């Protein structure tokens, strides 16, 4: 590994290519050393001869040594290679070379980094003399090799980096920018929200004439119709959305939200997949209920008939559900069966001759709400309603919210780009924007009152003489 690193990392690449072979780490070191010795002794200093023993020698010998062996003193090179291993027990040492020379040849081995490998320089130095004076002097580390992964900026953790600091300029301008952007957006949303005309009529208490509300609602015999009259405060442009709003109804309850079978709703032959629908999976006679589950079972069943100035207007109940639900979630060949057949009546009944994909009230209802108070689309009025028009709504007040104290309301609302009437976003934007501007101002003032040089080393705790870090 280290050898390889040397070969690639030190930029010995060129030299390897001269010799023309891949570095072979498994090449027995000893054999090579011997053959190298033999060559040197045989007086064939031509580097071409080195080719067969190739890479290792190339690797072992720095250019310095190659040049030496090519030049005047081949024996120096040979001994240099041999001596490190045979020093301790070989008769070779009987006439030991001057110690510094031995040492220097050892030193010029693998260790010399490539910055010293400049062929011109080394040639010069080797021409000058055979006594390398620089034997122990180690050159500084060479520049990283750009071709090697190991020395990339990435591995050295030296990737160019941008280091933003929370300087007053950045922070103040950031807050200013946010403030400047937020206030107009907030005002725009607010005005959009304000332009929406919304009529809310809570009818759950008023539509029950008696004190025993639960008894009233649960009695299937009584007439539950209830007439409400509303005055439209402002001109309402079509389309006007009609919602029913239920309060304190936990459509997000775990027991409720899971009680459905999406497969059954989608596919005709999946009617038996009612595992999650308990306790509304099967009817009393054991047939699967379609659509099964608590959600479908508790389908909202109040109805509204609306007339404007005593003149009935049409409530469009088409396309109130998401198109995607109709086409992909509810099957056009799945028909309700065994629905609401049990002893316990839940909500609305379904027309068994209409496929589920057309039962838009059901589809809307089955998109469960995340919050306990929610609105669901009931229909649309596609004509404008003028200001001060009298709206008369005849409500079939069937749905039981009384047993759990929930509320029911009818909502008529126009729409805009922001959706329904919701002042929250507008107000929040204005407030947040205002706060940001205020903070920016505070920071500016603070900066003026108490300017502080960034990066004053005298603030460093160890320069300041306080015992504690600033807290």
């Amino acid at each position: 590994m280290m050898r390889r690193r040397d070969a690639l990392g030190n930029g010995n690449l060129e030299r390897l290519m001269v010799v023309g072979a891949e570095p072979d780490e498994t090449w027995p070191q000893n054999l090579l050393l011997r053959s190298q010795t033999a060559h040197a002794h045989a007086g064939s200093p031509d580097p071409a001869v080195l080719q067969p023993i190739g890479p290792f020698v190339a690797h072992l010998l720095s250019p310095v040594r190659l040049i030496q062996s090519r030049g005047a003193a081949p024996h120096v090179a040979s001994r240099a290679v041999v001596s490190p291993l045979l020093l301790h027990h070989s008769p070779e040492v009987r006439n030991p070379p001057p110690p510094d020379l031995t040492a220097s040849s050892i030193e010029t081995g693998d260790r010399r980094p490539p910055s010293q490998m400049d062929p011109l320089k080394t040639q010069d130095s080797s021409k000058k003399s055979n006594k390398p004076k620089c034997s122990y002097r180690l050159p500084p580390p060479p520049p990283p090799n750009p071709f090697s992964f190991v020395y990339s900026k990435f591995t050295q953790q030296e990737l160019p980096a941008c280091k933003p600091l929370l300087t007053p300029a950045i922070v103040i301008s950031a807050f200013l920018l946010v403030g400047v952007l937020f206030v107009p957006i907030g005002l725009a949303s607010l005005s959009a929200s304000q332009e929406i005309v919304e009529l809310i009529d809570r009818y759950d208490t008023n539509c029950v004439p008696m004190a025993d509300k639960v008894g009233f609602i649960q009695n299937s015999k009584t007439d539950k119709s209830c007439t409400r009259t509303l005055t439209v405060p402002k001109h309402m442009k079509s389309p006007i959305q009609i919602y029913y709003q239920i309060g304190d109804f936990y459509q997000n309850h775990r027991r409720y939200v899971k009680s459905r079978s999406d497969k059954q709703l989608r596919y005709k032959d999946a009617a038996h997949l009612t595992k999650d629908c308990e306790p509304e999976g099967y009817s009393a006679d054991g047939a699967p209920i379609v659509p099964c589950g608590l959600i479908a079972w508790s389908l909202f069943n109040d109805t509204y008939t609306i007339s404007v100035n005593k003149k009935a207007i049409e409530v469009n109940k088409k396309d109130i559900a998401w198109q995607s639900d109709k086409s992909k979630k509810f099957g056009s060949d799945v028909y309700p069966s065994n629905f609401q057949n049990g002893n316990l009546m839940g909500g609305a009944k379904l027309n068994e001759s209409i496929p589920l994909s057309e039962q838009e009230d059901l589809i809307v209802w089955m998109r469960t709400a995340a919050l306990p108070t929610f609105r669901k689309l009931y229909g649309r009025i596609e004509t404008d309603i003028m200001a001060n028009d009298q709206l008369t709504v005849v409500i079939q007040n069937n749905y039981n919210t009384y047993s759990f104290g929930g509320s029911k309301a009818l909502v008529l609302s126009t729409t805009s780009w922001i959706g329904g009437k919701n002042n929250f976003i507008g107000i929040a934007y204005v407030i947040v924007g205002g706060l940001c501007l205020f903070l920016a101002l505070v920071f500016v003032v603070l900066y003026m009152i108490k300017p502080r040089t960034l990066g004053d080393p005298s603030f460093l705790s160890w320069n300041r003489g306080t015992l504690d870090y600033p807290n």
Partner: protein
Amino acid sequence: MEVTSWTTMKRFVYINDDSCRYSYCGNRISNTKYTFWNFLPKNLWEQFRRFMNQYFLIIACLQLWSHIAPVSPATTWGPLIIIFIVSASKEAWDDYNRYLSDKKANERKVWVVKDGTHRQIKAQEIHVGDIVWLHENDEIPCDLVLIGTSDPQGICYVEMSNLDGETDLKTRFVPSISANLSADQLGKVKGVVECPNPDNDIRRFDANMRLFLPIIDNEACPLTINNTLLQSCYLRHTEWACGVAVYTGNETKSGMSRGTAETKLTAADAMIDKLTIAIFTFQIIVVLLLGYFGNIWKDTQGLKQWYLMYPMEGPWYDFLVIPLRFELLCSIMIPISIKVTLDLAKGVYAKFIDWDEQMFDWETNTPAHSANTAISEDLGQVQYILSDKTGTLTENRMIFKRCCISDTMYGNNNEDDGLKDAKLLHAVSSNDPDVIKFLNDGTVSYKAQSQDEEALVNAASNLNMMLISKDNSSAGIYFNGSDFHYELLDILEFTSDRKRMSVVIKDGQTGKILLLSKGADEAILPRASAGQQIQRYLEAVEMYSQLGLRTLCLGWRDLEEDEYKEWSKKFREASCSLHNRESKIAEVCHSLERDLHILGVTAIEDRLQDGVPETIKLLRNAGINVWMLTGDKQNTAIQIGLLCNLITSEPSSQLLSITGKTEEDILRSLERAFIIMKNTCETKDLAFVLDGCALEIILKHSKESFTRLAMLSRTAICCRMTPLQKAQLVAILKSAGYLTLGIGDGGNDVRMIQEANIGVGISGREGLQAARAADYSIGKFKFLRRLILIHGRYSYNRTAFISQYSFYKSLNICFIQILFAFLSGLSGTSLFNSTSLMAYNVFYTSLPVMTIIFDKDISETTVLQHPQILQHSQAGRLLNPITFCGWIGRSLYHALVIFFITICAYADEKSEMQELSMVALSGCIWIQAFVVTMDTNSFTYPQIILIWGNFVAFYMINLILSAIPSLQMYTIMFHLCGQPSYWITMALTVVVGMGPVMAFRYLRDMYRPSAINMLQQIEQSNGSIQAFGGMDSALESVRTNLTDLVTDSRRNSDSNYQPLLSD
């Protein structure tokens, strides 16, 4: 006692005899941890022994109960299985590679000789008693007792670097009993080797060998480790060698010494574990509370909600259902990804260390290496460095400097090289007999086993006295044109207990027998013959060691022929004994080494390594206490301590010496040192000096007061330490709760290195033994500063962020779920769908956090300029309960912001479950991206790509998921992205979520900056590093004085953490 009897059990190996070959295991090596069949159960068992994994397994099993599972079980099983597969495949891959290398080793062809015929068999088929025939450069397949070589003198050379890391060749000898056998005879030899049961001591092999007829030599021949060829070594420079297999397979010495190192747990890991347990407790409390109120809600409200159709009477376990649902809902509080993320990050830290070019030692071509990838953070929290001296602080390149022979001091103060001293040259050329003898002594024992000897021989050869041949039994010396031959009779080896070694030689010319000894002064001088003046030598030793030189004393003595013979017999007996051979030999040697004529003292210089003083100064400025533990003499050690900035000679520092002649003296001086240290003004640099004997007594009698002293002392010099004592000192500091780093280079430091929290080995001239045992190996002491200040510090900072952020993001989503519970009748509904939950933890939030592994809070230059900044990480200021509370607070705040903005903006007709959940989730992702951005100090392109790429990926993934009709979130994302109000809501969430954090940060950074902020600002203000350079030097004196204050304050107020990230 039982242990002894067990260890002295023997095995009898019958050479070339089939009858016993199957009683021991074959030579099949197996390093694998698993087999194909037991991999799955064993690996599962290993993995699920960890608490975290058990926790997740329980959660995953609970998920299978659909009645309580809030989301699909896949949310837990998926990540759990992925994590399991990742760690299992890593294990499997490692094991497979081990299997492959084992297989290669096992199927290697080796030659064995059976009744005279050579056969080639697979290495795994070798059995105990076989004669294995090795050729040059062969790897030795099992532990062998050498019985013959191609060398007429019966020696062979082995390279043992695989075993002890030392690259120099070792000489092995054929035991005398088989020395004269021919190659043919060797193949047919029969006999028995009596050897101890397999152990892992590669320096000991106390056995006997007896050969049977036809070789008529019935005497038991003692065998030592020098007669063995150990598995996994290589035969070098020897044409062939053959040996008897004594230990095979996994019972060889190398097989027995393999073992898995125990895993070290970093301080940061321990803190993370603590925090995990705290979060777990918090989770249980939340679950119990929510479960309790959930049940109450169900009983009071739930039954009224007719559409829920709650049965009046539930099953008996009904009261458990809601708490268990919440348990599952809250299980994400403990992030499943934290372990994987941290392991990955640690792996990268380790790679950064391996790759670091500035820690690459060009002199020896050694890169820094982290063998233990798991403990990089500890480097940034080191409090004590315990350093070896020789080879660690010094170069371990010995140069002969001075000597004192027969009362004459050679080498004077001005001269650099003792060898150039004219006086000495003169003395040599005039054949001063004492001088000659002096020089002889060094040369004869030359084996280049020790650096000192090499220095002596080099010096001698420069004085025209050359060692020209040296083999097993004789040595030739060439001096002034004539050869001298000495016959080497016995070597009384060096042991650290005896602290000396001797040789018995016979002069080739005169036939006189001489004993030559060399060793430490206190080991040689007391053994001088009565009446000899040793005062002069004592002075010389004193003087040399004050100059920081290593001294050796030499002595000699004539031996009478009879005396030698008698002793020789005893020596032979002792070296044959199987029990306590070492102590018996020591005893015998002792009896011979007496009445020495002291010849002189040599002084050898061991130069300080490059950059050592600067490094030590830097480390001390960084608040790290540096202790020097050495086997050397006190004076030498103090001298080196002065040279390398460990102690200063100015009046500002004081050395407290703990010495004494008796136990009471020592204990009293310990007390005194303690009182002085406690009462002295803290700006004064106090250090205590202690030697091995004193330590022994102190540890025996008053360990507590020593521990107290150790805690006060920033510097200590401990000399004459045995390897065990070094480890004991580490253990004392560790037991006081400090994070210790042991650094050393030699085999004598291995115990210390292994004992310390972090072991650093210098791959030096004493071999790689220390480097192999260590967690980190570096080429030079000076690299320690980068290792600690750069890598350690960054690793700590990064781990602190990764771990806390992992909890932050899990808690964030968990808090949202809990808040939603209050709106869903405490029924345990999950706001988020299964896909989102799974992807959130594993994907959306794990990638951005990984970017922090490229983060640098302040540049490397700044850290090295202001090493004091390390005190931040040392004191654990970035990862502690307070910072963690800050993160929890931020998490809660962000959860509140996301949740309330979402439910307000998406109220009424928009409150569709899927939409609302996606709005909340995107709110989380937006905030996360900004949180990571805000906590990143430096942006490099991988960071920018990962943070914002992940952000883009979130939308891509969800848009793709929204296109799949069968999923719950079909078309949801299309709906949302088309609504202006969605984007407006996101912007609001980000500003409300991040605005206060930013404002708080800004105010803190501006008006109450931490040291890190300060340094960042220094870096930023243009060119200030240069500009303040001058100022720095002006502040230098102040700083050095105050550094101690800061560290002491750290020490006194460990609880004084600074919450860095609280809201």
